[in-house]
């Protein structure tokens, strides 16, 4: 999507972070932070559909909730409704640091600092459709209350005018007057999702955040809902943020896609380009694991391992622990050695302690010297990935102690890859495989 001068940016997200504290002990002291969203930046232009994909636990839902103003960000900002010149000014002001320009922009546009009037304007223009329509529709309220509530809250209509507005909304989503005085449980999954959509559209918002709107539905009903969403976007010019784990759906619906992994964007770009030529290995892994009706069996493959703990995200590239193209520059660290040890109980049971000087440099203490020697040999052997071996700068074996030092690597940041694409990978392009 090319930015023209009159193009408005509905949301500009800048280095957004949302951390949740981990509390422990009798005093509930904070012992760590779950970095659900950890430095995300992107722009959302008016009228486009941005797809946000990733595995469960990658922070996509949290990001959606922060963007909708349901959670306060830990740091970074979400800026609402900027003109092109304001957006350019914002980026300049952010680079310059604190200043008058930034303060002025933040007062009127930064979502967590909006005053009363602006806050109401933001809230009515940002609506959300949730995944589970069982829990997002109040079972004790009638459809007329559910869909009419936003109109009442914003004093748009009352009495019979309100009822007529609700009927109009229901008709837009393929329901009718006969459904006004029913309860959510009297509807099927697809119909309930239509009610959620009608509620979100009631105030004619600028932005609709769709959090897995079709995950709970059958394909035939999913197709109905996707068609409906597209029609509504065409006729009323909504901006959609489409959060999903289903790649077939997102390919169908989104103009641009951002792939998230462990709280960060791994790759973003235009939909067809991203699907045809993934740059980030994680994107490729997702595409290969997606069963597609037209694709052949050759590429179908799963991804080894599990998502690392978001409270202690890996150094360098966050995906390096599961990446099949990992290089020595991807951020191998002491935690990776400990993970390897966990799979070798003979050595792990004898591990007495780890003394870290940095994430890349530590002493591993064992309860006997054989285990220490065993680890040192294991680190040189085929048991560990070749790229990890190559990243070791220094290993020394003491009596019951192994000192390991890895190559220090900076965080792998998103870099432009031409034509509105960004990817966070040390490789320039993936080897052609399928």
């Amino acid at each position: 999507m090319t930015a023209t001068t009159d193009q408005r940016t509905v949301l500009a997200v800048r280095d957004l972070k949302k951390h949740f504290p981990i509390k422990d002990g009798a005093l509930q002291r904070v012992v760590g932070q779950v970095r659900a969203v950890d430095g995300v930046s992107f722009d959302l232009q008016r009228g486009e559909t941005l797809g946000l994909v990733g595995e469960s636990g990658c922070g996509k839902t949290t990001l959606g909730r922060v963007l909708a103003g349901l959670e306060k960000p830990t740091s970074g900002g979400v800026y609402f409704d900027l003109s092109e010149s304001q957006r350019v000014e914002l980026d300049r002001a952010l680079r310059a640091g604190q200043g008058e320009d930034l303060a002025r922009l933040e007062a009127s546009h930064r979502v967590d600092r909006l005053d009363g009037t602006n806050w109401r304007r933001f809230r009515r223009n940002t609506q959300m459709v949730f995944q589970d329509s069982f829990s997002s529709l109040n079972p004790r309220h009638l459809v007329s209350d559910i869909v009419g509530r936003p109109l009442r809250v914003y004093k748009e209509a009352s009495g019979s005018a309100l009822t007529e507005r609700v009927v109009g909304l229901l008709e837009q989503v393929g329901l009718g007057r006969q459904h006004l005085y029913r309860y959510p449980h009297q509807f099927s999954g697809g119909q309930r999702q239509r009610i959620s959509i009608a509620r979100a559209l009631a105030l004619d918002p600028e932005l609709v955040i769709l959090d897995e709107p079709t995950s709970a539905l059958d394909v035939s009903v999913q197709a109905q809902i996707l068609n409906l969403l597209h029609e509504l976007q065409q006729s009323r010019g909504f901006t959609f943020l489409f959060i999903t784990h289903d790649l077939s759906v997102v390919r169908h619906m989104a103009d641009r896609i951002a792939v998230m992994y462990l709280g960060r964007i791994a790759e973003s770009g235009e939909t067809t380009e991203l699907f045809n030529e993934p740059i980030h290995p994680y994107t490729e892994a997702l595409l290969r694991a997606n069963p597609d009706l037209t694709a052949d069996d050759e590429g179908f493959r799963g991804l080894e391992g599990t998502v690392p703990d978001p409270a202690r995200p890996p150094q360098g590239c966050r995906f390096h622990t599961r990446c099949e193209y990992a290089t020595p520059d991807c951020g191998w660290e002491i935690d990776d050695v400990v993970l390897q040890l966990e799979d070798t109980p003979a050595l792990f049971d004898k591990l007495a302690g780890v003394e870290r000087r940095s994430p890349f440099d530590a002493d591993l203490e064992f309860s006997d010297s054989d285990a220490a020697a065993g680890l040192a040999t294991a680190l040189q052997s085929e048991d560990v990935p070749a790229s990890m071996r190559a990243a070791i700068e220094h290993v020394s074996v003491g009596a019951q102690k192994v000192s390991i030092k890895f190559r220090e690597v900076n965080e792998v940041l998103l870099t432009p890859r031409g034509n509105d694409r960004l990817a966070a990978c040390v490789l320039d392009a993936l080897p052609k495989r399928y």
Partner: protein
Amino acid sequence: MTAPATNPPKTTAPVVASVRDLRVHFKSKGGIVHAVDGVDFDVRDGETLGLVGETGCGKSVTARSFLRLVPMPPGIPVSGSIIFRPRQRCSSCDGAGCPTCAGTGRVVSPCPVCAGSGCDTCEQSGAETIDLLTIPERELRSIRGNRIAMIFQDPGKALNPALSIRKQVAEVFYAHRSDELLVSAGIDPGSGSMPTTLLRRRATQQSRTLESVLLSLPPLRSGRTAISEAADDRVATALAETQIPNPRAVMDRYPHELSGGMKQRVMIAMALACDPDLLIADEPTTALDVTVQARIIELIKELQQRHKTAVVYISHDLSLVRKVADRTAVMYAGRIVEVGDSEQIFHEPEHPYTRGLIDAIPGAHHERGRLAAIEGTVPELIDPEPSCRFAGRCDYAASVCWTHDPTLGPVRDREVACFIHHPPEHGEAPSFDRTVR
């Protein structure tokens, strides 16, 4: 059923289980719900049969009927039979695969009445035939988890949260392989002496409190430990087979300590522990991420090839079933509407419902907003009149579709239940050339 050219060995393989005219209804306030209403299909040795359909079309009830896991009441077993022909290890090659067993390592176990010569009990086939819907509960218990195993949709709910992985996987062995455990522990299971009896009761998890006390005393303690160790070895082997890293450490964990993919692996390990003839996988990957789902699918396929197990794979995800299944049966509203070779069904669907389902999947070739949605929803199945269940949503429905039940009949290489392919004797037949809407 004629054999499609692509997969001749599997479709000519002997039938492991055949479902005939299965009808399971449910009592509800509104009337009798015909959840499964006349389902017929065969599962052949070593094949994967995919069972697809929308929510509420009766796929899970069909699957659970195999092991009589449908609660009765409210369920009503109306009619039908599920004939199961168990198999046993081939004696001439001991499971390695030889000409006698056509390389599968298994042979049909002979009919206990006629010892394989053919009699009325086994319909002259000579094979042991068991009707899973009528045999006594006691006999069914020896089949559940042993000859027929099941993997459930949500591993988080199917595993017992209060038992360690070691204990719950070991239950399978205590229930079905207690004699083997005794032999491994160096105890003669045939002996009738007092200690052996106590240990045998221990190996089948029947010990009472007093017996447990006796077993913890020195003369019997070693035997008890030996049995536990034999079980532990088998648990570790079973877990290792599903590629769980470090199985001995996982054994002491509880389900909540494992990730979703790991829990599903434990479920698969339990299911395959006794080397079953038939594995029923009821949406085994629906609760998992795509990347993990792909790993689990690979695992199931690999283990199936090694164990030569027949698999009934139930899913609502057509693209997935295409990857997994050799043959596919499409269900709609309690009936099978189309069954045949997977590749051909997905390539050239014949039933209007199958066509609709496949067109509804968003693909690269669809223009946005132009997905071919099937309008309407699955009909309520309360006391339905004879008619094609799909008529209300079908683009081609003619008058005959509203008044008569279509039956499965051969179309080219598969079977389809539709008047388009089997025109009725009276009345006007529907056609793909004529749309109603």
